[in-house]
């Protein structure tokens, strides 16, 4: 993020960040076809546990939400709920073309086109789908960002919730959230957002 925030970090936070980056759990959710490269990434050929990255089962436990490629509108709805249930700090990683500009489903009636209109995205990986090497590089890049204190995209969701909410409503009509984003924003210390 901005230089200001970088300089504002205390020494304690810097140390903490360098420890926190060593453990990152991703949500084990195959949202799209890119997920087929996740098992190789998890298992012995590429073994992402080397970097402290593990698949986790529920949103509560996870730090990383991988959007593995296209998101059908039906899945997108679930993904948004999942994201809201995750504990901060949380990172969304977009896999491949589909999360950026619709990918090969650019003219499909059933998939969303730009992920960053619905959720704040920390990183994008190029590829259709990204290979395990690229995924591992992506995770390393995320680790670096956390280390440098740059991985703050999640804050945007609470600071600019209106923007995301507007786009979500545009796509779904009304969406029923489980959590009060206003309360969450307050908890996280952001300005209160009117729901």
């Amino acid at each position, binding site marked *: 993020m901005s230089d200001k925030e970088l300089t504002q970090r205390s020494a304690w936070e810097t140390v903490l960040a360098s*420890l926190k980056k060593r453990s990152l759990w991703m949500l084990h959710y195959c949202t799209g076809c890119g997920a087929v490269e996740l098992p190789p990434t998890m298992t012995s050929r590429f073994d992402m*546990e*080397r970097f402290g990255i593990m698949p986790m089962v529920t*949103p*509560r436990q996870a730090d990383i939400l991988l959007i593995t490629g296209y998101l059908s509108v039906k899945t997108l709805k679930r993904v948004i709920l999942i994201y809201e*249930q995750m*504990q*901060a700090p949380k990172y969304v990683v977009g896999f491949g073309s589909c999360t950026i500009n619709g990918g090969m489903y650019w003219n499909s009636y059933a998939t969303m086109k730009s992920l960053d209109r619905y959720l704040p995205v920390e990183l994008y990986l190029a590829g259709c789908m990204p290979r395990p090497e690229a995924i591992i590089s992506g995770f390393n890049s995320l680790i670096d960002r956390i280390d440098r204190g740059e991985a703050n995209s999640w804050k945007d969701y609470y600071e600019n919730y209106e923007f995301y909410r507007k786009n979500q409503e545009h796509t779904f009509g009304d969406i029923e959230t489980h959590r009060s984003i206003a309360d969450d924003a307050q*908890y996280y210390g952001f300005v209160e957002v009117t729901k």
Partner: protein
Amino acid sequence: MNSGIGLIVWIIAYPFVSFFLGVLLGGYGRKLTARVQRRVGPTWIQPLFDVIKLMTKQTNISHGYMHDVAMMMLVGGTLMTMYFVPVPGFHYFSQFGDYIVVMYLLLVPPLGMALGVGQTANPNGSIGISRALQMLAGYEITLVMTFIGFAMKHGTTSMYELMKLQQAGGPATWGIFAEPLLGIAALFALQGMLNEKPFEVIIAPHEIATGPMTEMGGKYLGMMFIQHLIALPMELTIFMNLFLGGAQSWVEYVVKLFVLFTLVLVVNAVYGRFKTDGALRFFWKLPLPLAALGVVMIMANGM
């Protein structure tokens, strides 16, 4: 060291020492499993990073008062138990509480978990808890049975005393060699107590989405991890004290801890999990009769 300032230092330091041991064991476990699986695995202190990460997460979910209290019960209960398990150089509390106390205290954390998870109202969690309680009926009874045998043989229920007796008698008097039936039964029970495969039915991600942990995130999950890491060396120590003659020095203690844990891990690495009823049936079919037989033999010898 079991009195005065040394004692106070121990009381304060012991949880941290235990936690540190737990971290090492946990990391070792993950590393070893990884190697069986032909991969490199994480760093040796990976569990520490996990805990730090979890405890620094901004946790804003709470499923109510019970949810929070339950976490206290979980960690508190484990810490309490820990003090009653003698380790080299520290057996102050074990003179006040014998093995029966330990057995009793061991039930507190699952109870705490049950309360907390019940509060979250997640069906997966509820199933996980019911499984945990069912499993108690498997390994706990076996464990108690083996202990009864020992108590009968040596005429004491103090873990410290039992340990001392074995240390005095040398390896030949170690429970596992002296009473192999009880020892083998207790090894199975240990596997169950540590919730490792093939008895890992409580977490079972593919079946019930990590069961009790389903609703836990951030600090709550961190607490559970801390509890797990403290309980790990403690549970191994219980077994060690009963069947491997405890340890006289820290070097011996750590070596035995790791060797014992390795045994548990290799089984864990090459087996899948039973179904709950399968696990129970197994316990009732093999370890429990073994333990019972052992007890009978002790009784026969004693008569």
